[in-house]
């Protein structure tokens, strides 16, 4: 019993490693399909693909991608490049700026909507009209509106997290069991006590969920915003434009390996920031992890 309980995380870690390794292997094989397709043995395959309307020089889709070994080589080459790390720092600053602003504005706003009927009636319809507008649709408007490109990108990332956080806070606060309020009331709680001792801790788990999801959206948004706005800086090359611009720039420059390096970098960045938030979230809601 104990052994399986202890073995389970190791086993699931092993499964994760195997699945990633298999995907990398298939990808490598696919990328090398160019070489095999040239041989005589592949003639029937070529004919079939041709009949289907595909290119006959390599397997469709995967054959055009750079192989993982090539990506690794390219990655190793730019690890010492300051510009690459500046891209990380740039995107990270934008994400944390927009995300922090979304938390600072979104949590009190959500709580206000949840506890005050008038505020809900006034603000929620407007909020619901604005919410379906994708953050990226805001990019042109925000470039016009904000004085610097930096601010406009941060604003768009702010929007990405803001809606998610507000929706989670409102939903979480409204879902608090009415019995908790009745119990607190019957033990003599004032309205302020109810807010501080019931609503705040009762909403905390939803705030954590909203923050983790919102952080993911922020990373999605920042990359696209950087691509559209041209990186937010006049410095050319790979330096200073953020990871989104790094990808765009690699595409324009024809370095397909670097595109993938940029994509994986964003994946890692998003994963690390979400994990950090989850860790923090577990610390502030200890009653959820201890069952």
């Amino acid at each position, binding site marked *: 019993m104990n052994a399986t309980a202890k073995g389970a995380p190791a086993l699931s870690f092993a499964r994760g490693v195997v699945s990633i390794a298999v995907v990398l292997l298939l990808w490598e094989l696919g990328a090398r399909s160019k070489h095999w397709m040239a041989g005589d043995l592949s003639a029937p395959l070529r004919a079939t693909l041709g009949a289907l309307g595909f290119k006959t020089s390599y397997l469709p889709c995967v054959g055009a991608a750079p192989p993982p070994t090539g990506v690794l080589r390219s990655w190793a080459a730019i690890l010492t490049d300051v510009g690459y790390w500046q891209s990380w720092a740039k995107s990270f600053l934008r994400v944390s700026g927009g995300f922090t602003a979304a938390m600072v504005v979104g949590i009190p706003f959500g709580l206000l909507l949840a506890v005050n009927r008038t505020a809900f009636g006034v603000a929620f319809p407007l909020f619901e009209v604005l919410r379906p507008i994708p953050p990226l649709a805001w990019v042109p408007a925000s470039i016009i509106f904000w004085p610097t490109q930096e601010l406009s990108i941060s604003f768009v990332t702010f929007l990405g997290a803001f809606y998610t956080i507000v929706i989670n806070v409102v939903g979480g606060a409204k879902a608090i069991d009415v019995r908790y309020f009745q119990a*607190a009331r*019957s*033990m003599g*709680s004032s309205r302020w006590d109810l807010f501080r001792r*019931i609503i705040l*801790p009762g909403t905390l788990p939803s705030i954590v969920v909203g923050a983790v999801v919102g952080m993911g959206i922020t990373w999605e948004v920042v990359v696209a915003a950087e691509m559209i706005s041209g990186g937010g800086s006049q410095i050319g090359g790979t330096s200073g434009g953020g990871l989104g611009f790094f990808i765009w720039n690699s595409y324009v420059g024809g370095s397909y390996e670097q595109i993938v390096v940029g994509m994986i970098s964003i994946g890692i960045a998003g994963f690390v920031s979400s994990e950090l938030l989850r860790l923090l979230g577990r610390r502030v809601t200890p*009653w959820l992890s201890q069952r």
Partner: protein
Amino acid sequence: MTAAPFVHRETAAPAWRDVPVAPGRTAPVAEATPTRGAIRIENVVKVYGGRSGAVTAVDGCSLDIAAGEIFMVVGPSGCGKTTLLNAVAGFHDISGGRISLDGQVLCDSARPQAPRGSDRVVVFQNGALFPWRTNLENVIFGPVMQRKLSKRDAIDKAMDMMADAGLSGVEHSYPAEVSSGVRRRVEIVRALMNDPKVLLLDEPYRALDALTKSVMHEALLRIYYKNKVTIFFITHDLEEAIFLGHKVAVMTTRPCRPKMILTVDIPHPRDYSVLTSKRFRELARATSAAVHEEALKAFQSGEREG
């Protein structure tokens, strides 16, 4: 309504006890006659206005609950007994009549909703411990929030009371980490920490299995013997009612009013051997017909939870 004499005194020798009990468990507890927590419910009416017309949940209901008494209210689900409890607690208003506590009017036609106060604390059907607080933090909630006690004093008192209730060792666990029986005891201790005049229990053991229930009944009685507080206990379990109560009121269903009031002449302190005693069986037999009749009525009218 039958005006039953409501002052109950444990006097007679336990002639009903035909099963010997383990020594040490029957030691009589020093009796301090409680002087507070008498509830008088007079002609209370509660009408709900619904979409399908008005529903009279409680009509002409009068009950007299003596200070320090365990008063059990038995009725089928949806008969309106919870409405009565909510009126005493101040969660709902009443449409007519009067409820008073120790001679002071809580609510009447002039002020239909009783003020909510820590002199009447409710323990809910499904439990309402705050999941984000440890059991100990839950227990000290009331007195610390009202600044009746410093946090340190509250913790000392809470540790004592929890130890008395057999809750040593779960103080720093979260409610989700302990069994539902333990949770219910923590909740009762949390209520008692407010030093209430009346404890309002709304089917607190409904969700527990029969074995846990029997343990919980004895635990509740032990807590009660230490803190003589008036207990207004709602249940649909007749045996539970007779085992625990000084008085058992069997309620009619919709509208809710007392059908019969039984004075349980089995002396306290009681323990589980009571359940197999002859007197217990006699009382249960005498009451069960009335309860069954009301349950049947509730079933036929298709009433759900109320």
